[in-house]
């Protein structure tokens, strides 16, 4: 069979292929759990089953990418499959149907590609864990729900995937639930996400009421006829869902705690894929958001604030995974900035590059952690480049990419976003700040500061971990082969994916771009403003790197004094800007108080008492009726005779 025939055959069978993408991880989840009946040594099979399942999904996704024509202008290829009518209630019809277009293709390629590698990595990472079947089953289940979320062709089905990934996230954060902090972290993630999900649900209801359908296509067609306020409200509510899932202000507090899970979980779910679901959802509904300028402005503001806040916190963290977690929040802030600026394709671009380099960074961090006997404190690392040079190269590449240094993938996506923010139309009714700076300029400034901070904290973590002298105990050792292979495969895309500016990707995402955005390399290069901004951003990143290198080599004493001059207790960075404490006093405590009042006043006194009372009434009446049962045969006979007598009398009389 030559290539052409293969192509034809695939096109004919593409519906089955689309189903296979979903079915493979689901089957993998079931089968890998079945290995629980095997002996502890053979349970490693679970990992390989999971990897194979993820790889099948990835391979089929690649086939879709190769065999379908994605470059066609306007009528880009798309594929869909109708499974079954799902909900038919009144005027609302929801189908379980899948939809593959360039946007979801981008997502599934990223999810399955990075996912396969992290599955492979997890085999090495979890080698000594005792519940491998459970882990890999959850992992594959997560992949299934994520793909369902991405491939859904209406909001309802997307919500199924949305909740499913939330569930898997909860299960995996609390994977080592024998320790209380891990279980609590899982609960926190779950509860915080529920707040966002409530917004998602309400937004969905509003759309269903206004549009009468939840199909993305139907929503898009109806936008012109909708009440602008309804659009704003629906967008705002859905944004709440996205903010919860993608860890933005005010719901970002769960993500740093989610690092309690195993590192592959952090890499796959809390860095590369699941947290981007909010971004994906907004891109998917971009026509709606384009019609809601106020919400767009809010997204822009939230994104930039989150990016700045998280980056500033990341600067002082000592836990290597916490640094990466805050970094993730910060990078997601970038994506939200792009969304707010209407540059949906740039958001997707950054999403993909971020998945690559943050996945890589987390894998490297996990390798360091296992290499140092599950130590996570960077103060106990140092000089690790020689015992684990493979991991060092991976971490270096990831840092290079995320810091936005020249030619790294992060540089391209980040600069594109900064440019888009700078040129963003003044969304909030042409407001300018003191008539001096446009809002776009302000947010660009924040973005630039974040770029600088990103370079700073990543360089800091790199230096603390790999340079200097080893400060931990015992010997540090390199990780297993599967982990190194997974990292090695991910290095090239993390480094070089941006070179082509993901051209095919960005081109195919043109329907999701602002009209005035420039997409191809040549277009951008010809734009003077873009080049100027690019140079400024590169300079900021470089300055951050150089500053930190200097600070931690010759200025070590100065850094120590700087750290000591503000006690940690009142340092806003070390205290994470007191956000957790604020929520504790503002929400958690009052809620707990109300719950306690309700428990004692209503539940105990009213509900429990009434139930007890009914039981007591039944018991007392039983006691009283029981007196009739004397246990004496004579009495029974007497009653029987009386019955006989009255029966006979009745019969005689009537």
């Amino acid at each position: 069979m030559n290539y052409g025939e293969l192509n034809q055959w695939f096109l004919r069978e593409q519906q089955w292929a689309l189903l296979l993408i979903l079915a493979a991880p689901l089957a993998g989840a079931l089968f890998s759990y079945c290995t629980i009946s095997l002996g502890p040594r053979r349970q490693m099979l679970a990992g390989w089953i999971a990897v194979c399942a993820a790889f099948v999904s990835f391979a089929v996704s690649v086939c879709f990418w190769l065999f379908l024509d994605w470059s066609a202008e306007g009528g880009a290829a798309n594929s869909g499959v109708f499974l079954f009518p799902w909900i038919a209630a009144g005027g609302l019809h929801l189908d379980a149907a899948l939809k593959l277009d360039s946007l979801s293709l981008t997502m599934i390629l990223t999810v399955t590609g990075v996912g396969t590698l992290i599955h492979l990595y997890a085999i090495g990472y979890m080698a000594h864990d005792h519940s491998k079947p459970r882990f890999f089953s959850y992992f594959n289940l997560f992949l299934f729900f994520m793909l369902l979320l991405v491939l859904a062709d209406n909001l309802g089905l997307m919500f199924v995937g949305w909740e499913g990934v939330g569930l898997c996230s909860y299960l995996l954060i609390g994977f080592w639930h024998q320790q209380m902090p891990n279980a609590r972290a899982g609960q926190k993630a779950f509860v915080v996400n529920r707040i966002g999900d409530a917004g998602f649900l309400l937004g969905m209801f509003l759309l269903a009421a206004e549009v009468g359908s939840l199909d993305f296509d139907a929503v898009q067609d109806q936008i012109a006829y909708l009440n602008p306020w309804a659009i704003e409200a629906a967008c705002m509510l859905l944004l709440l869902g996205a903010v919860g899932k993608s860890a933005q202000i005010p719901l970002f507090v769960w993500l740093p705690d989610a690092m309690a899970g195993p590192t592959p979980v952090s890499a796959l779910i809390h860095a590369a894929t699941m947290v981007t679901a909010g971004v994906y959802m907004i891109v998917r509904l971009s026509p709606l958001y384009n019609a809601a300028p106020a919400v767009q402005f809010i997204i822009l503001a939230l994104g930039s604030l989150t990016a700045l806040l998280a980056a500033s916190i990341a600067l002082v963290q000592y836990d290597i995974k916490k640094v990466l977690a805050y970094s993730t929040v910060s990078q997601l802030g970038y994506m939200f900035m792009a969304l707010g600026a209407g540059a949906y394709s740039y958001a997707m671009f950054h999403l993909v590059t971020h998945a690559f380099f943050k996945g890589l960074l987390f894998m490297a961090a996990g390798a360091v952690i296992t290499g140092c006997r599950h130590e996570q404190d960077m103060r106990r690392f140092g000089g690790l480049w020689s015992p684990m040079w493979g991991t060092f190269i991976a971490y270096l590449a990831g840092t290079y990419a995320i810091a936005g240094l020249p030619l790294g993938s992060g540089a391209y996506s980040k600069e594109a976003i900064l440019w888009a923010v700078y040129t963003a139309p003044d969304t909030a009714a042409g407001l300018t700040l003191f008539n001096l700076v446009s809002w776009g300029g302000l947010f660009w400034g924040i973005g630039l500061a974040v770029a600088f901070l990103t370079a700073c904290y990543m360089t800091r973590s790199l230096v603390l971990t790999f340079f200097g002298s080893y400060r931990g105990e015992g010997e540090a050792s390199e990780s297993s082969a599967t982990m190194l292979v997974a990292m090695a495969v991910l290095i090239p895309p993390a480094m070089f994916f941006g070179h082509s500016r993901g051209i095919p990707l960005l081109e195919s995402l043109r329907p999701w771009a602002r009209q005035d955005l420039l997409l191809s390399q040549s277009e951008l290069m010809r734009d003077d403003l873009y080049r100027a901004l690019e140079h400024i951003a590169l300079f900021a990143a470089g300055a951050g790197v150089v500053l930190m290198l200097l600070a931690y080599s010759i200025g070590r004493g100065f850094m120590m004094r700087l750290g000591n001059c503000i006690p940690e207790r009142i340092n806003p960075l070390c205290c994470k800007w007191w956000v957790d404490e604020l929520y504790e006093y503002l929400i958690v405590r009052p809620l707990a108080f109300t719950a306690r009042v309700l428990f004692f006043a209503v539940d105990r006194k009213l509900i429990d008492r009434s139930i007890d009372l009914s039981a007591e009434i039944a018991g007392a009446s039983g006691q009283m009726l029981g007196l009739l049962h004397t246990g004496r045969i004579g009495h029974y006979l007497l009653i029987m005779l009386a019955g006989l007598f009255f029966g006979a009398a009745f019969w005689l009389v009537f």
Partner: protein
Amino acid sequence: MTVTAFSLAVGLVLFLLGALGVLVRRNVLIVLMCLELMLNGANLSFVALAQAFGDLAGQVFVFFILAIAAAEAAVGLAIVLCVFRNYRTVDVNEAASLHG
């Protein structure tokens, strides 16, 4: 008053005396005997009516009742033995574990 009517009256008296005994006596053995009295009252009526109508079916029924009475007496007396073994009494009111 015909022979049949008189015999039925005697049967009725036997039955009622038996029923009264079952009601008022507390000795379980006497209760059993009173049951036999009630059965005999019924038997007497059957035989009287068989004679009145010239039909042997009545006598056949009496025969069966005899057999059932024998069975009842055997099982009943066995139960009395069991009760006595457990309660050390033949008073039906003492063996009243089922009272409410």
